[in-house]
């Protein structure tokens, strides 16, 4: 807990480099295709958790923010690349996607966060439907037919383009985790936690709740947009009904809730576990069944393990032998008092 942020960042960059080198050594590019999706979910889960886990506000519109990022890339591609043959670098696209989604997140938050929390959740759910309607009717980005993005085969000096995308997503994932951890240990994070625990009390104690919530929606939305921006280049063919699909929404909720929502570790664990599981299940069983698995795991975890895997590990670690003895002694002295 006491690791300073630069050290934390460095450690993760080293781990990333090791993972990348390891994947290269395996010599199979499918690893990068599958790994990209898992990393994308790490970003989505972390982004969702900044608002959902830290502030306690549920966002069902992850797919909408993600798709906004993806479609802003498509729009730029159609606008610039197809005419001038100038390819905007993907990091720039990520920034633009993040900006667009961040602005939309801010707007949504401003309209709904002044009211009870449930309205925000419902509005985000509806946002996905409406943005999808807009994109379906917007011929410039392909409408319901979808849009093709031609990605270059190679990029210097990394080689295959998918490796480049994988690397970018890895950097974004590390950035996301670092931001989440920074928030967690800052004034901002304590403010968020106070909103989650008791918004009324926080407000009464002078916490500027609306401003904090708006910061959270903006950061969370922007990260999701950034995760979406390189997606058209990954998939090659972008189509509204799959980009706005419910599976992004359910995954980005399920991963933090299964991993644990109170710290940055939770979404990371959840995304790595669930994401890899899904990649394996998609290859071995079918893609519809793996979504069913996610849905069932989500329901089971919220009922049985409200604090996720992190919570389970935490309680397990705290169950030390002397603690047990202590509990028994208290139980013996005051029967029925210890739950």
């Amino acid at each position, binding site marked *: 807990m006491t690791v300073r942020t630069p050290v934390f960042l460095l450690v993760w960059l080293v781990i990333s480099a090791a993972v990348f080198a390891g994947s290269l050594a395996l010599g199979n590019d499918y690893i990068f295709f599958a790994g990209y999706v898992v990393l994308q979910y790490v970003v989505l889960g972390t982004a969702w958790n900044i608002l959902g886990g830290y502030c306690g506000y549920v966002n069902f519109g992850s797919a909408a923010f993600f798709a906004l990022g993806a479609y802003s890339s498509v729009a730029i591609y159609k606008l610039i690349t197809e005419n001038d043959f100038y390819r905007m670098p993907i990091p720039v696209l990520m920034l633009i996607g993040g900006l667009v989604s961040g602005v939309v997140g801010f707007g949504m938050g401003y309209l709904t966060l002044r009211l009870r929390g*449930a309205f925000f*959740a*419902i509005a985000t759910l*509806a946002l996905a439907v409406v943005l999808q*309607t807009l994109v379906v009717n917007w011929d410039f980005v392909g409408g*319901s037919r979808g849009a093709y993005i031609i990605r270059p085969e190679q990029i210097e000096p990394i080689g295959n383009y998918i490796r480049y995308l994988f690397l970018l997503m890895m950097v974004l994932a590390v950035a996301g985790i670092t931001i989440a951890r920074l928030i967690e240990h800052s004034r901002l994070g304590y403010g968020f936690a106070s909103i989650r625990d008791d918004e009324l009390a926080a407000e009464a104690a002078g916490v500027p709740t609306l401003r904090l919530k708006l910061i959270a929606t903006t950061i969370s939305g922007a990260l999701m947009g950034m995760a979406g921006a390189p997606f058209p280049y990954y998939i090659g063919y972008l189509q509204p009904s799959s980009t706005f699909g419910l599976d992004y929404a359910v995954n980005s909720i399920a991963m933090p809730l299964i991993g644990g929502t109170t710290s940055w570790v939770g979404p990371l664990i959840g995304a790595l576990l669930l994401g890899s599981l899904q990649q394996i299940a998609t290859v071995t069983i079918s893609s519809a*069944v793996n979504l069913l698995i996610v849905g069932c795991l*989500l329901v089971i975890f919220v*009922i049985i393990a*409200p604090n996720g895997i992190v919570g389970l590990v935490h309680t397990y670690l705290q169950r030390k032998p002397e603690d047990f003895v202590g509990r028994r002694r208290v139980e013996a002295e005051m029967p029925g008092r210890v739950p």
Partner: protein
Amino acid sequence: MGGKSAHYYPRRPAKAQSFLAKTKALLHTPGGLSGCLMIFSLDLLINAVVSGILIGGFYAAVTSGVSLSFGILDIVNIAHPAFIILGSYIAYIVNANLGIDPILTSIAVMPAFYVLGSGIYQVYYVSFEKRGQESLRGLAFFFGLLFITEVTLVLYFGVDYRYVEASYIGAAWHFAMLDIPFRILVPCLVSLLLIAALQIFLTRTFVGRAIMAVAQDQLALRLMAVDPIKIKRIAFGISIATASLAGAFLIIIQPVEPSVGREYIGRIFAICVLGGMGSLPGTVIAAMLLGIVESLTSTFYGPSWAPAVSFGFLLLTLAVRPAGLLGR
């Protein structure tokens, strides 16, 4: 999913296509934005308004369940549309195999839906409400239910559109320049009956009044020797039971596939909020308003724009008058 412009006038035998539907098909050029034909004619307008009111009656039935659960009990049941789709599929299965009228089927399975609803509330209460975690985990729970229902239906029935057969589907009532298809009129009338019955139940019976009271003061209710949890369980059961009927209406009005329910989430909550949380008369008025505006939008701008209307309604209501039209 989104792109298919299957709205109120989807694939049907030619005789079933009313004049309005043909005009809509003519007006709807693929590509929305470029194809906004602003043709204004009186009978188009009147037909659009009338069909909007009728569709609104159906929306009221769809929303009445959420008015109970979200409006009165404060349970954000976003899985409600999934239960409606479940009702549609039950009506479809019975209709396809036995040829029984979908509305009769749905009334027959209402008790089963009631039991299902009570069961779900029990799980919800024990796992979330009791622990005070309903805001985050309770929502995720219902979202998971929505997702599981949808994926299970997809796995069993695929994503094909399903529809039912009944004597009144296809017939229409022509009156001056009006065309009223019975497959919208019948659900609208039955739905208004349902809402009237619910309203009488809520205001005239002891249990109904207790349901209204549980929203206001649980402690006072307990002092009257009524168990609030039991009352909530009954209310949630009723709320899910209405989904059975709404599901039958839905499949009478339009062909159904598992993800259709998602389009209704925005509508349902927009109507619920606009009507004033938990007010059934408000729900009817709001539903008809939304129906009219949606019908006008799809007549004059093309049906692919209609889903955006409800969201506009929702945001406008939240921004201007969060208490709704007939808010308590």
